[in-house]
């Protein structure tokens, strides 16, 4: 009896060891432990054996069954691992290949800058206002204390549409449009396209400006400085040096231009160089402007400023010519 069990055992273990896949392993299991398997058959024949034999056979059969099950499990694990390994190996991919999905698009650098500037002023409490590109001379000049015979008009190289109508040369006319619509206080920033008859490496006939206007009680030149310093430090970095120097605009008094000390690598020599760059114009709203919109100059004061969005985009990104901004060459647009 003992030999019979040992023969079955040796034979089964040999077959288990020889299996190479899960399917043949299962066949071995069925051949020994299945309903018609060799071990099962022995147990099934127990009824014909004596009680002593029955006990011994029972014990031996159960031991064998347990041993075979363990061997089967171990073999199964091994084979599963092998199969996984093969599967993984067969699925080997090149993870360096580009992913599937939308290739990146780009917001035009002018609008990236414009949005960033708007965000800074929005956080301070300014709201956005807009006005028309095709504008009356009244709003573009007269109401801004720039009458027809004012020399300041000469410097503007204005596009004319018809008598009394021009392409706005600045975003400032929106100051008037806004103040006409509301009593003080008012705090707006105005992004927009402006136009001048001029075209070379530093001038585009269309460019983008942003105007700012704040009118309330007790607004001072010191407030103007504070607001613009905050903007410039936020936009260009805390360490940027800023200077306000006197200038002239017909619709502000006192007026100033604001420069930053900008350090950049010289395109030709490769040396780092610092120089003062004009960034914006500003001043306290002129009493004549207030008169036009029936604001009380004695009770209210205000400041206005205007900055070239193209200009600060070019400064910050070291763009060499303004023409790049409007050529719309993808090799330019995709850099930002």
């Amino acid at each position, binding site marked *: 009896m003992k030999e019979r069990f040992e023969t079955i055992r040796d034979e089964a273990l040999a077959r288990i060891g020889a299996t190479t896949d899960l399917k043949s392993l299962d066949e071995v299991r069925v051949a020994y432990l299945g309903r018609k398997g060799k071990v099962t058959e022995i147990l099934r024949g127990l009824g014909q054996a004596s009680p002593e034999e029955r006990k011994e056979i029972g014990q031996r059969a159960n031991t064998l069954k347990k041993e075979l099950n363990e061997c089967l499990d171990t073999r199964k694990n091994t084979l599963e691992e092998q199969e996984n390994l093969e599967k993984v190996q067969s699925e080997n991919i090149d993870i360096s290949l580009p992913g599937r999905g939308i290739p990146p698009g780009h917001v035009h650098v002018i609008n990236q800058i414009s949005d960033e500037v708007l965000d800074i002023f929005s956080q301070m409490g300014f709201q956005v206002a807009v006005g028309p590109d095709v504008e009356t001379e009244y709003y573009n000049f007269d109401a801004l204390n720039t009458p027809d015979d004012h020399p300041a008009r000469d410097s503007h190289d204005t596009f004319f549409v018809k008598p009394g109508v021009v392409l706005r040369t600045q975003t400032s006319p929106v100051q008037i449009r806004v103040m006409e619509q509301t009593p003080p206080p008012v705090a707006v920033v105005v992004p927009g396209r402006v136009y001048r008859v001029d075209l070379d490496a530093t001038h585009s006939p269309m460019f983008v400006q942003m105007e700012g206007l704040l009118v309330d009680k007790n607004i001072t030149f010191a407030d103007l400085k504070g607001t613009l310093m905050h903007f410039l430090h936020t936009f260009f970095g805390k360490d940027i040096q800023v200077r306000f120097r006197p200038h002239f605009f017909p619709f502000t008094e006192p*007026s100033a231009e604001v420069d930053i000390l900008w350090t950049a690598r010289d395109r030709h020599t490769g040396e780092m160089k610092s120089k003062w760059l004009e960034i914006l114009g500003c001043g306290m709203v002129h009493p004549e402007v207030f008169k036009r919109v029936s604001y009380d100059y004695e009770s209210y004061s205000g400041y206005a400023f205007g900055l070239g969005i193209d200009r600060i985009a070019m400064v910050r990104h070291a763009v060499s010519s303004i023409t790049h901004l409007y050529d719309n060459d993808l090799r330019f647009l995709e850099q930002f």
Partner: protein
Amino acid sequence: MQISFNWLKEFIALEVTAHELAERMTMLGLEIEAITEPGKEISEVYVGQIIDIQPHPDADKLVICKTDVGDSEPLQIVCGATNMKVGDKIPTAVKGATLPGGFTIGKRKMRGVESCGMMCSTRELNLGEDHSGLMILPQDTPLGADIRKLLGLDDIVFEIEVTPNRGDWASMIGVARELAAFYGLELQLPKVEINESGEEAGSCASVSIEEENLCPRYAGRILRNVTVKPSPPWLCARLMAAGQRPINNIVDITNYILLETGHPLHAFDYEKLAENRIVVRRAQQGESITTLDGESRKLTEDMLVIADAKQAQAVAGVMGGADSEVDTQTKDILLESAYFNPRSVRATARGLGLVTEAAQHFQRGADPEIVVYAINRAATLMQELADAEVAPGILDEYPKRQEGKEIKLRYARSTQLLGVDIEPKKQQTILSDLGFVSQQSEEDFCVVLTPSWRHDVNHETDLIEEVARHYGYDDIPTTMPPIRQSDRVFAPVEKKIRALRRFLAAQGLTEIVNWSFGNGENEKKSGMTDQTEHMVMLQNPLSENYPGMRTTLLPGLYATASYNHKRGARSIQLFEMGPVYHAVDEKELPEEPFYLGIVLSGIAPEHWSEAERPVDFHDIKGFMDTVLGHLGYAVTLKQLSNSAFQEGQGAIVKIKKRQIGYIGKTALAAAKSYDLPESVFVLELNLSKLFERPMPPAQFKDIPQFPASLRDLAVVVDLSISAAELTSVIKNAGGPLLKSIDVFDVYRGNPLPENKKSIAFNLVFQSPDRTLKDKDTQKAIEKIIKKLQQQHGAELR
């Protein structure tokens, strides 16, 4: 305006370096555009005299000169110029000399003849553009003198931008006066020394002003027996440093005085003035004048002229006439120093299209009180440099004195506006240093009279600016204002536009910004001509390519796509957001709706895992669906046929009944005219119209509690029947339980007949209050099939 540092020091005893001065001028509002040192690179150049000229043996175009530069031996110099003769004095660079541009002069052979130096033209000395010949110096120039000193080349020149309000800064005295006020220095005006002789001016000529408003003051002097000749080097040097070309001593002196005082003068040839009379009057109807530039100009009655007894001899304040021009034959001169109305000069200069130095000075507002000083300064120099005999007396017509303005300054107002407390005493001092004359001085305010050269000061706030400038913008503190907001909203859709821009870029589109100009021809080429007849035209366009303002974004999108294809881009996906311009009859200003345009051109974005394919209609429609879906709008397309789109692939985009744009495949003719490939697709939406009706906030609907029941339905229909038509039937027939309909497959080909296609839908049925059973959905499906059969001859596949 170019300001010579050396010259400036003749007016004020400056003790600062040029660098410090430049800083200070900047901070006073005198913007420095450039600082140059004209003689920086020049050394070892001396006054030489040609003592011999011989032809070159081997070169027709060269001569051999012997030039004496004051050394023991004259230099032999081979020279290519032809304008010199023996005896001429020429700036001569000797061996070892350096010249602008890094030139060094050495001994060398020219066609076999040794040359030991170089005689210079004005351009070689950085004194002008003239390179046609040598610079010939006056005979009395001292031999051997260092040219740097002689011609004032050892100088520093500040080029300043004079703002339009400060006409007074366009002169040496004006700039010196500003700096004298700041540094607390005394302004030293150049001397006037005239020895009058001969007949009284008043008995040789007369001045009458007919238009007092246009010419408040007119002064004249008579100068006799002048010698018209070249000016001395120092004067030439001053003019050249200011960027002017010396002509002759008389003209040069008037130009010099203009630089010095900012006051334009004019010299008439006295003998050419009929009856020796000066009449300041309006031009007569039909009158014309030949101006100094040789042009005959028609005058109008609103223009002021300086006339003699017969005719106009000068356009007042703009340009003199050729008939009374000073030339080398001139003996006697009537010198004019006048003050003209700025507006009148400006209107005349503009009317004649004649922008002159004089007109620019007058239109900014000259100084009526400097009239006599300027004419006396000129007379002093003419006496000295042109041997003029100055007739006694000035013909000074000044009917009504031009008074300054009295302006009140409340000290507290300065503080209030500037945000810094400046002592009243300090404020007062600043103003008086600048020439404002105190009329009244109280504890909390003062009243000052503006100086005659300050036409820009009209308001209290102008005085406050003066105080601020001289107090120093740097010394005004920085504070943050509390920002209070109007309760009005000025740009309600601005935020949506900005968000949409980000969204579009996130969808893989790249934004372009085109100029807003337009061209009717290009719009025709693009086929999008809905609004072309309403194009806003420009009177003075930049070029023929941009005669007006765009009415559509399409031409710009096509041109940009084409530009980039030509530079190698194969897959183009661009968008532009911006205004277009539609003129409206009877309205002064056009409408400026804000548009969005998308163009797809060439192949779809490539990926290694997929085959290359051209973009198609469903790509552009996908963008439309995504954009409008993202914004919450449901759109419908209505097919159209127009010249912009290929037949069968163009549609109007509608939201309910409102048309908001176009979508389609670019017509082949349009694509070809822009050099574009065949597969180009565009979408143009009027965002102003889209955002006109804001979407109401979404209202929550209960999340379904019971499972949905999914059914597929595939039908075979004629090719001409659209998915939208079928969907509409399904929707109507499906009853309230049908929640969604999606196309999931479209098939053409075997075994279907050629004119048929199969379309398959996913249908979702769901009830809010129970789990649906098969028989519920089956009933709906049967009804749907029946309706599809009835209305579109559909067969179940």
